[in-house]
């Protein structure tokens, strides 16, 4: 590479605190959802982003209760720690939780189980999600996606209108001006809402720290059986088809993102508290979605999944 890859300065990333303006913005969005829609739900995965969204909802309506149900699309390949956490949170906040299973969609013949080395149920979630939206008649689904995660996400609106088939059409998005949100839809259509669109991964972690939120234990260092594939550390589990030369071993790891076990890579880490986690992110050499195996499939992997109705 020529001159352009030479940095002209050394600029230090920073560890400043969380910009509160982001919380004010997210609370405003959540209050609009409660007012503009009949039956909204929070898509809850048990990951740090959806935990943040639940916290924001708690703050937005206090002293009233959160006016949204939670929907968890269970791939059957979850980390057990995440499920424990989910049930703890639901119980603590007195929330209504709906769980729908990818396994059921497979049994109904609506989606084909992937096979082979990279088999994952991540993309299959879409079918189960769309069915659940129809079943419960949710007109708005609130998600924890952020624009800094990925290039196609960077183009996403706060209120993202999806058609009858849940499809995203990047070229037909409604313009969003100032903070005026237009959630008007036809019957059958629904809106995906992204209240933490403008947050970065670091913002989420700083928020979790400042709010002293509990998070699933797999975000911190722990000993786990892992194996290496394509330069990434994979958690060993019964859901992954290993080849003979992929031999599991024990080591200290943590997860930066919590997805399905088949599509989330671990990072070697000794971080056992939030300060260390934040320190790691500041100096990290790999991006958050870089640990998402599902995004590695192609340069446009996310855009294609979104067109098909993925959140």
């Amino acid at each position: 590479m020529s001159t352009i890859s030479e940095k002209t300065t050394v600029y230090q990333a920073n560890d400043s605190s969380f910009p509160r303006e982001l919380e004010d913005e997210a609370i405003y969005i959540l209050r609009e959802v409660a007012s503009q829609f009949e039956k909204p739900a929070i898509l809850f995965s048990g990951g740090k982003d959806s935990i943040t969204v639940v916290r924001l909802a708690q703050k937005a309506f206090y002293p009233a209760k959160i006016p949204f149900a939670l929907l968890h699309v269970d791939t059957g390949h979850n980390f057990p720690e995440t499920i424990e956490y989910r049930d703890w949170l639901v119980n603590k906040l007195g929330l209504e939780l709906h769980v729908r299973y990818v396994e059921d969609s497979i049994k109904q013949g609506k989606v084909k189980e992937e096979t082979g080395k990279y088999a994952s149920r991540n993309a299959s979630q879409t079918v189960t999600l769309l069915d659940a939206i129809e079943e419960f008649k949710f007109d708005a689904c609130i998600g924890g996606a952020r624009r800094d995660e990925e290039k196609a996400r960077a183009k996403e609106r706060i209120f993202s209108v999806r058609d009858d088939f849940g499809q995203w059409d990047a070229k037909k998005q409604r313009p969003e001006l100032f903070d005026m949100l237009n959630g008007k839809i036809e019957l059958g259509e629904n809106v995906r809402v992204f209240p933490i669109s403008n947050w970065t991964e670091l913002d989420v972690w700083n928020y979790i720290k400042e709010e002293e939120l509990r998070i699933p234990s797999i975000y911190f260092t722990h000993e786990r059986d892992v194996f290496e594939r394509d330069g990434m550390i994979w958690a060993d589990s019964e859901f992954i088809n290993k080849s003979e030369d992929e031999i599991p071993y024990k080591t200290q790891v943590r997860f930066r993102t919590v997805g399905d076990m088949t599509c989330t890579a671990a990072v070697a880490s000794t971080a056992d508290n939030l300060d260390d986690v934040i320190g790691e992110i500041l100096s990290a050499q790999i991006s958050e979605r870089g640990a998402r195996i599902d995004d590695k499939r192609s340069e446009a992997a996310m855009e294609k999944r979104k067109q098909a109705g993925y959140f």
Partner: protein
Amino acid sequence: MDILRIATAGSVDDGKSTLIGRLLYETNSITKDKIEALESASKRKGLDFLDLSLLTDGLIAEREQGITIDVAHIYFSTPNRKYIIADTPGHFEYTRNMVTGASNTSVSIILIDARNGVVEQTKRHFYISSMLRIKNIVVAVNKMDLVGYSQERFNEIKNELLAIAEQVSFEGQELQFIPISSLYGENLVRKSSETPWYEGETLLNTLENVATQNSELSVKNARFPVQQVIRPKTEEFHDYRGYAGKIASGSFFVGDLVEALPSGQISKIKTIEKFGTKLETGKAKESVVITLEDNIDVSRGNMLVKVGEQPESRKEIEAKICWLDGQMLTVGKTYLLQHGINRVKAKVTKVNSLIDIKNMSLNNTPPADGGIKLNEIGWITIKTASPIYADKYEENPANGSFILIDEMNNGTVGIGFVE
């Protein structure tokens, strides 16, 4: 830590994506795996340098055509502040995205290719930035490397733009000119040795010192649009009635006398709360819950304002409008007008004039077909079914704009600025 929101604009090939890529790269906002992906993508395109523009062109169609289609939001931060860039397409057809991306920003960076100088797009972007009352305009004269870092060329462009500024700039708007090369990072983060004649700041330094929009909104008249009435009806909060919303402008204090609009009833602020914490005051952009001393008539879409600072009640509005939809604005058709969070039925009664951006002149004869088309800007008179309480956009941008929604397809079809 504060947030500075920036809009970037430029014509196709002005090197906007490269500029943003540079800012990310130099502030250590790009991780190693993304740089590696960039390297292999650059190689696939047959380039022998790292194509930083590939960082922002996210959609398949954009990469195919090598242009930006939709507004992308990009994030980076320095120890001083967090930056949000709304990268808006420079392509003619997508001007509506420029308005979208630039709404809410404190700074507009206008890129000019030093070889081409001021083009029609430059005028358009300048005009839109001024229409949106963006206080800081940074004109980045890019590709200085291709004109030998010529001071003469730089001044030529500067003077041309200053002449346009006389027509479109508003009082208090600040204009800065910076000679840069995105490709080589000259005057972006590091002061260039190629331009000893330039005495100003680098681009990043300029951005670090700009005042945010929030600080200005806080000194405007106080406006609190009510999003929700919070009534928990639990034992603990049996009689609780709180008004949830985001303060649009100004600030409120406990004890302030406020008027509820449209009912006109007056009460006193009892508490200003955030998640149960009682505050003395709340200011612009803060999401709070306000409780009042008396039970008065307040519901969603209503507005609390300070007594003595009431806005005008308007049922007939003169406004500047930018049309965002393929179907043109139709006089006499009923639209839904959304002012902040409040929606009322509305009818455009008259298109008064159209702006001719190319010649920087007003076309005072109404358009022959009677409407306003996609990407056009005009002056209209609009009538609402019930009054709205808007300020003039130039006096208080947070309470002076509205969108029009077409009820036939629910699309957001126009953005209006109250005159």
